[in-house]
């Protein structure tokens, strides 16, 4: 490999690494200290989060200095991405969460991935689900 080829390969890898750098979402800066505006979250997910995941980037959701977060908000933020490809769930990580925030995040993610309550809910009859719950 010539010197030029080495340089070009190095630049290529550098560019690739840059393109795949993790996308950090500072919730406080994006959505305020009480991040619960679902419309804003859905909009952000479409514009930034989903394209980043499709490019192979990791997502880091930073909960620093935020208060109560509902599962509806988390659902709005990541559900489109997770439903489009369930492997995306593994690429979404959290940072600086309280125990309660982590519990809410886990609940939302669990139900996004759970076929009984989400992904095939449209096809599943209510009676089947009702029987399962009653049992």
């Amino acid at each position, binding site marked *: 490999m010539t010197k030029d080829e080495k340089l070009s390969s190095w630049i290529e890898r550098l560019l690739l690494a840059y393109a795949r750098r993790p996308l950090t979402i500072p919730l406080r800066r994006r959505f305020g200290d009480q991040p619960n505006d679902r*419309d804003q979250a859905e909009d952000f997910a479409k514009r930034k989060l989903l394209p980043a995941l499709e490019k192979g980037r990791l997502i880091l959701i930073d909960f620093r200095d935020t208060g109560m977060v*509902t599962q509806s908000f988390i659902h709005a933020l990541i559900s489109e991405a997770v439903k489009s490809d369930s492997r995306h769930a593994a690429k979404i990580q959290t940072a600086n969460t309280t125990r*309660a925030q982590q519990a809410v995040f886990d609940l939302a993610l669990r*139900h996004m991935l759970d076929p009984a309550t989400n992904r095939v809910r*449209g096809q599943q009859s*209510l009676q089947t689900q009702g029987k399962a719950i009653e049992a």
Partner: protein
Amino acid sequence: MDQSSRGAGPVVYGSKHVAAPCRSCAAVRPQTYLTSLARYYEPYRDSMTHGSCRVPTNFGYMNLAGGLGELRLPFDRIGKGDIEPLDLSHMKFCDPAGTVALSAYAATAARKLKRPLPLQGWDSGSYLSRVGFKSLAGYRDDFPRTRLDSDRLTSLIEVATAKERQSARKDVLNVLGVHHVGARMVLDYCLEEMLRNVEDHADSPVNALLQAQYYDNRKQVVMAIADTGYGILHSLRQRHQSIADDEEALKNALKAGVSGRNTRKGTNAGLGLTVSSSLVTKMGGTFQLVTGDTMLEMTKTTQTMRKLGQTRWPGVIVVMLVPRNDSLDWEGTFEEVMGAI
């Protein structure tokens, strides 16, 4: 007594004309001034006084189903001619559950009719006046003193947008004096989910009406939210046509995921009611849910369905009664509930 006049036109007793047709339903309503006749008609008084919707003496979470049934609020007749006045003259006690129900009805009527809802027996110093009922009924607010935060009760708050939700939640928790971090988190969570539900599902003409109070003697927080939108049955039938009635709709609404993706706005996991009701009951509180002709009351150990009688509530009323005990493990219970659903 002139017997021949019975059955046709006003009833005539002796020479006195004592009965006239009711304005709203054309039934004959005796307007007796003779004591003997008043005594005679007393047992039938309720079935004959069609002239107004009489609010019961006590109207709150303790008798929400019975009170609504007794009220017979004519939602279906709003906008179709004359509407009965709301008779508040007998009311002695009201709490947030009763307040939001009455206010949601009054505001719906006033907005659809584009004029104030007629009120009977209004007391400008009453609880309803204190919480700002009159302005929702279409009148100028005439509460005679300054509202004090130290009263530990909020005024009625109409919530429509995300910003209003955030500010309402903050106001409610501050006024109620909830400073314990865990308690604040749980109540805040439930409020946000219930208010958001109204925005997602209801399309309510009065948005979400919220009122809350802290009862020091019982160490209990009562938070009530009402809307007069589509109701749970209509909302669930968008996806599950097999749901037959309000009772079945209420049972299904509490199951995880059933109400999901039914929203007017985007997608939804359908966990809001499940999580909030579980949180409230797990903390030792009571969760009441009214829609259509049915009320569901849940505690830690029981679930009771009650029929409302002759009233059909078009939207949803949610009442959350939560004991405010700072020694409870709020955070631990929160995580436990989140893990269990």
